[in-house]
C-alpha cells in the first residue's frame, strides 16, 4: 500500500477481482443493462414467506455465484466483508452464519460495495489474506417498508424521488492474477450540505461524490478525461446533473465518459422517477456491465464512486439533515 496525497491509496502488491456474481429483480432485468444482466428473478420473495427472507436468499445465491465464478470453494474464502440496507445488517448477518467464514459487516448505505472492496484490497495488499468475498444487496420491498410507507399504501411519489433497486452483487477479491486489477482506492469524507428532504437523496449525495472525486484527482494528479469510464453509484438524474455542476465549479469537466448508474439502470419507459438507488445498484452493474466492458477491452481504466446517504428514519424524523459519503475504487485491465 502506498499513500498518495491526502486520501488516496495505491495498491502496490497485486490485487484482482477473480469472481463475480449478481442477481437482479424483474424491473432491473428490463432496464438499460438488460443485455448484461445474467441472472434475474421474477419472484421478489424467492419463494420465501417474507421479503426479508427473500433478500437473504438472493444474497446467498449471489455469494455462491461469485465463489463459483472464482473457481473456489467456500473454504478457500478467508474473510467475508459486506452489508446491506436493513437495520443491523440482518441480511448479511444471516447469510454469514450459513457461510461459516469470518465476517465483518460494513454499513455504508449505498456505497457499501466500494467500501468493502476498498477494505478488501487493503487487507490483500497487507498480505494477511488471499481470497476475500465482498457482497451487498438492496431490495425494493424490504427497504420501502423500513424507510417509507407500506407497499399498497396509495400515495404519490415526488418527481425527484428515486426507486430502490432489487439487486445485488458479489465479488471475490484475491491476490491471484486475473484481468481485472484493483489499482487505487480512495475512502471519502462525510459531507452534509443541509439537505433534509429524504426523497431528494441525489442532492444530498452529490457533494460527497464531488469531494471524493476532487480529492482523488488532486492526489493522483489526473483528470476525468484520463479515464475511459467514470461511474457514480446512485445519484439519479438530478444528482448527477448537480455533480456535473459542482465538479465544473472545481475545475473538473465530467463529459461523455461519465455516467450515473442509478440514472441509467432503468430504461426510460419504466416508471422510476430520477432513477434507481440502493446498495445493489452499483454492485450489480459493476458485476455485469462494467466488468464485461473491462474484459472485452472497451474500457481500460474505470473509476467507480459509489455514494451513500447515511441517514436513518429516526434522524430524519427528528429533522436532521442527511450526511453522505462516497468511496472510490479504480479498476484497470491488466
Amino acid at each position, binding site marked *: 500500500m502506498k499513500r498518495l496525497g491526502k486520501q488516496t491509496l495505491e495498491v502496490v502488491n497485486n490485487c484482482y477481482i477473480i469472481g463475480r456474481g449478481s442477481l437482479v429483480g424483474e424491473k432491473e432485468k428490463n432496464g438499460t443493462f438488460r443485455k448484461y444482466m445474467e441472472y434475474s428473478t421474477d419472484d421478489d420473495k424467492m419463494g420465501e*414467506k*417474507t421479503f426479508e427472507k427473500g433478500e437473504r436468499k438472493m444474497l446467498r445465491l449471489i455469494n455462491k455465484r461469485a465463489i463459483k465464478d472464482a473457481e473456489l470453494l467456500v473454504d478457500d474464502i478467508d474473510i467475508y466483508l459486506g452489508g446491506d440496507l436493513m437495520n443491523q445488517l440482518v441480511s448479511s448477518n444471516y447469510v454469514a452464519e450459513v457461510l461459516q467464514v469470518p465476517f465483518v459487516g460494513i454499513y455504508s448505505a449505498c456505497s457499501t460495495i466500494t467500501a468493502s472492496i476498498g477494505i478488501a484490497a487493503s487487507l490483500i495488499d497487507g498480505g494477511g489474506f488471499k481470497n476475500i468475498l465482498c457482497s451487498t444487496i438492496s431490495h425494493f420491498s424490504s427497504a420501502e*417498508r423500513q424507510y417509507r*410507507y*407500506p*407497499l*399498497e*399504501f*396509495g*400515495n*404519490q*411519489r*415526488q*418527481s*425527484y424521488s428515486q426507486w430502490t433497486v432489487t439487486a445485488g452483487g458479489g465479488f471475490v477479491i484475491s491476490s491471484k492474477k486475473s484481468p481485472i486489477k484493483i489499482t487505487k482506492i480512495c475512502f471519502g469524507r462525510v459531507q452534509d*450540505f*443541509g*439537505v433534509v428532504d429524504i426523497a*431528494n437523496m441525489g*442532492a444530498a449525495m452529490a*457533494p460527497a461524490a464531488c469531494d471524493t472525486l476532487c480529492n482523488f484527482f488532486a492526489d493522483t494528479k489526473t483528470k476525468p478525461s484520463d479515464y475511459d469510464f467514470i461511474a457514480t453509484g446512485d445519484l439519479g438524474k*438530478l444528482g448527477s*446533473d*448537480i455533480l456535473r*455542476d459542482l465538479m465544473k465549479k472545481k475545475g473538473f469537466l465530467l463529459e461523455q465518459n461519465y455516467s450515473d448508474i442509478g440514472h441509467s439502470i432503468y430504461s426510460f419507459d419504466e416508471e422510476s422517477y430520477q432513477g434507481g438507488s440502493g446498495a445493489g445498484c452499483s454492485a450489480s452493474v459493476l458485476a455485469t456491465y462494467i466488468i464485461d466492458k473491462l474484459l472485452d477491452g472497451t474500457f481500460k481504466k474505470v473509476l467507480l464512486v459509489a455514494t451513500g446517504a447515511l441517514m436513518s428514519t429516526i434522524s430524519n424524523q427528528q429533522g436532521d439533515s442527511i450526511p453522505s459519503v462516497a468511496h472510490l475504487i479504480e479498476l484497470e485491465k491488466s
Partner: protein
Amino acid sequence: MENTEKRNEEYLLYVERETPKTGWFNSLLHAFLVGGMICCLGQMFGDIIKAYNPTMDMLRVSAWISIIIITITILLTAFGVFDRIAKFGGAGTFIPISGFANSIASCAIEFKNEGLVFGIGSKMFFVAGPVIVNGVAYSIIVGLVYSLILLF
C-alpha cells in the same frame, strides 16, 4: 462554521432551482377527476339505497355509502390495484374516506409478518394514527368552543 452555513444555504437554493417541479395543473385535474368519480359513485350508491328504502333517513344512507366505499377500497388495496389508482389520483383518492381505509388496510397487509399483536395490532395505524389523533384533538377544541358559546 459560518462558512458552512453560507455554503449550505447557497447549495439548498441551488438544489431548489434544479429540482423538477410537479405540474400543478395536471395534479389538480387528476385529483378532480378521480375524487369526483369516487364522490359520484357514493352518490350513486346513496340513490340506489334510497330507491329501495324510501323510508330510510339520510344519516343512515350516508353511513351505508361510507361502508360500501370502505369495503371496495379495502378489496382494491388487497388486490394491489388501489395504489395504482392513487398514483394517478393523488389527493383525489386520499381526501375521501377511501384514503383512510387504504392507509389502514395497507399497513395491516404489510405488517402481517410481524405477528398479530406487534405486527397488525400495533402497526395498523402507522399512517392513519396521526389523522385520528388530529381528529380527536380538533373535536375537543371545537367542543370546548361550542360549549362556551352555549353558555352565553
